[in-house]
C-alpha cells in the first residue's frame, strides 16, 4: 500500500516536472520569437499568473477569499526594491526573490493567523482593509519607502554565464526585457510546480477537506486553524514572488501600483479562469494582460476617445465576473465549501419533516 502511494506520488511529481519542462521550452520559443515590448507584457503576465496561482490555491483549494493579495505583492515588491537600490548591488535576483518571499511569508503568517478565524464577508472585509491600508505605510515612511514616488528598482547586470548560455542556446544576444521575461517565467514555473505538488499531496487534501466540510475535517483530526494558516502562508509566499517579478518588470515599487484595483483584478483573474486550477489562474492572467489592448481597440473603433477606451478593460472584467457568478456559479464555485453549505441549508429549510426526525 505504502509502496503504491509512494509510486503514485512519484508519478505526480514526474508529471509536474514534465509539464514544467514543456512549459520551459514553450517559454524559450515564445520569448525568443517576440519583440521587446511583447516580452515586457509577457513578464507582466508572469507576475499576475504567479499571484493568481497563489490566490487560486487559497480560494479554490481552501475556500478562503483574499482581497489583500495586492498588498502582499506590494510587500514583495518593496522588499525587492530595498535590496536593489543601485547598480552596485551584486545580489543575485534569485536571492532577491527568496528574500521577497520570506518577508511576505512572515506577513502572510500574521494575516493568515488573524484570517483563519474569519469567513465569507468578514474575511473579505478584513483583507479589503489590508489592501487599502498597506499603500499608506509606504506613504508614511517616506524616507525609507519613497512616499508617493516610490522606490526605483535597479536591475543588476545580467550575469555573464547567463549571457553565454543564452547565446549558446539561441544564437543571439540576450536583451534586458527578454532577461526579465525569463526570470519571471522561470519563477512562475518553479512556483507552479511547488503549488501543484502541495495541492496534490497531503497538505492539499487537508486544505480541500477543510474547504468542503469543516466538521468532518475536524473529526478526521485536521487542525482547521493550521490548515487555513498554512494555505494563507503558501498563497502569500506566491504573492511575494509575484511582487518581486513586478518590481523587476516595471523597475519601480510605488503605492499607485498596489491599489485596491490590483487586488480585485487578481480576484477577477481567478474567477475568469475558473477557481481552483492553476491552469485557470494562468488563463486569467493572460486575459488580464492581453485583453486590455484588444478591448481598448474595440472601444476606440466604437467611437470612444482614447482615454475612455483605456478604461474599458476593467469594466469588461467586472461584467464577466458578474456574469460568471450569475450564470455559471456551480461550474466555477461549485467545488467550494460554500456549495456544500448551500446544499446543507437547502436541505435544512426545505425538508423540515426529515430534520425534525433528528430534532425531537
Amino acid at each position, binding site marked *: 500500500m505504502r509502496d503504491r502511494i509512494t509510486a503514485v506520488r512519484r508519478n505526480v511529481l514526474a508529471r509536474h516536472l514534465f509539464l514544467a519542462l514543456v512549459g520551459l521550452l514553450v517559454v524559450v520559443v515564445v520569448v525568443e520569437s517576440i519583440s521587446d515590448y511583447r516580452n515586457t507584457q509577457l513578464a507582466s503576465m508572469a507576475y499576475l499568473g504567479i499571484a493568481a496561482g497563489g490566490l487560486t490555491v487559497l480560494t479554490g483549494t481552501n475556500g478562503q477569499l483574499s482581497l489583500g493579495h495586492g498588498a502582499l505583492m506590494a510587500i514583495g515588491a518593496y522588499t525587492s526594491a530595498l535590496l536593489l537600490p543601485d547598480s552596485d548591488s551584486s545580489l543575485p535576483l534569485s536571492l532577491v526573490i527568496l528574500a521577497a518571499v520570506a518577508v511576505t511569508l512572515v506577513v502572510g503568517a500574521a494575516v493568515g493567523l488573524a484570517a483563519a478565524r474569519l469567513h465569507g464577508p468578514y474575511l473579505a472585509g478584513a483583507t479589503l482593509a489590508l489592501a487599502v491600508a498597506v499603500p499608506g505605510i509606504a506613504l508614511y515612511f517616506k524616507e525609507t519607502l519613497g512616499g508617493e514616488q516610490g522606490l526605483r528598482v535597479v536591475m543588476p547586470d545580467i550575469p555573464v554565464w547567463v549571457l553565454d548560455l543564452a547565446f549558446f542556446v539561441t544564437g543571439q544576444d540576450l536583451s534586458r526585457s527578454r532577461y526579465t521575461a525569463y526570470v519571471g517565467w522561470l519563477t512562475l514555473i518553479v512556483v507552479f510546480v511547488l503549488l501543484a505538488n502541495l495541492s496534490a499531496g497531503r497538505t492539499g487534501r487537508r486544505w480541500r477537506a477543510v474547504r468542503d466540510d469543516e466538521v468532518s475535517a475536524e473529526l478526521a483530526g485536521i487542525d482547521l486553524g493550521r490548515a487555513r494558516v498554512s494555505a494563507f502562508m503558501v498563497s502569500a509566499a506566491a504573492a511575494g514572488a509575484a511582487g518581486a517579478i513586478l518590481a523587476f518588470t516595471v523597475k519601480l515599487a510605488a503605492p499607485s501600483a498596489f491599489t485596491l484595483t490590483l487586488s480585485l483584478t487578481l480576484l477577477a483573474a481567478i474567477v475568469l479562469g475558473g477557481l481552483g486550477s492553476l491552469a485557470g489562474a494562468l488563463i486569467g492572467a493572460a486575459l488580464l494582460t492581453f485583453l486590455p489592448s484588444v478591448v481598448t481597440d474595440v472601444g476606440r473603433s466604437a467611437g470612444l476617445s482614447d482615454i475612455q477606451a483605456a478604461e474599458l478593460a476593467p469594466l469588461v472584467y467586472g461584467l464577466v465576473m458578474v456574469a460568471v457568478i450569475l450564470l455559471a456559479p456551480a461550474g466555477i464555485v461549485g467545488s467550494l465549501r460554500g456549495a456544500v453549505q448551500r446544499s446543507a441549508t437547502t436541505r435544512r429549510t*426545505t*425538508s*423540515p*419533516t426529515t430534520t*425534525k*426526525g433528528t430534532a*425531537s
Partner: protein
Amino acid sequence: MLTLSSLTAGYGPVTALEDVSLTAREGEITAVLGANGAGKTTLLRTVSGLHRASSGTIDLGGTRLESVAAEKMPRLGLAHVPEGRGVITELTVEENLRLGGLGRGGRVSAADLTRIYDLFPVLGDRSAALASTLSGGERQMLVIGRALMARPTMLLLDEPSLGLAPRIVAQIFGLVRTLVREEGLSVLLVEQNARSALSVADHGVVLNLGRVVADAPADELAGDDQLRHAYLGF
C-alpha cells in the same frame, strides 16, 4: 371547505406526500396524525404555498390554491400557524399581531388587537415586550392570535402541542374548540400528539410515509385499537 385531491409532493428524489386526498370540512377540526416523517408538515407547507406540489389539486371554497404564492394566502382566508418557533422574536408582541392583521390588507384597528387580547389576556399584559421574552405556551398563543388577526376562514395549525406542558396544551386546544364553535372557523390540525388531537378534533386523517392510511371521524379512530397501536402510538 378545504379539499386536497391526489396531492403528491417531494424534495428532489424523495417523495414526502404521495397521492394524498382529504377534506377539511367547514366549522370542523380535522386532525392530520402520524409519526415523524409521515409528511404532515410538508402537507401544511404545500397547502400554504411554501412548497410546491408536483401534482394534484388544492381547493379552498372554490378557489384553486396549488399555484398561489404563499404571501397571497391570508387574503384568501387561509392562515398557516407554523410551529411555536414561528414568532418573530425580534418584534414585540403587538408588532407580531399587527403584522398578522396587515396580511388581510388594509389597516389594523385597535378593535382587532383588543379582540385578540380578550382571547389571550396574557398577550395583552405583555403587548410591549419582545416576543423573545415569551414562554413556549405564550409563543404558541401569539402565533395563533397573530393568525386570527387576519380573520381567516381556514386555520392550518402545525403541532401546537410541541414542547408544551399538558396543561397548556389542554388550554390551547380548548381555545381552538371555542373559536370553531363560536366563530365558525375551520381548522386543519397537524399533530404528533394523537391522543390530545383526537380528543378535540371532529375528524381524523392518518398519514404514514406520505400516504393516507385512515380517514374517519375522530371517535372512530380513537376506538380502533389496531390503528392506534400501528400508527398513533397510544
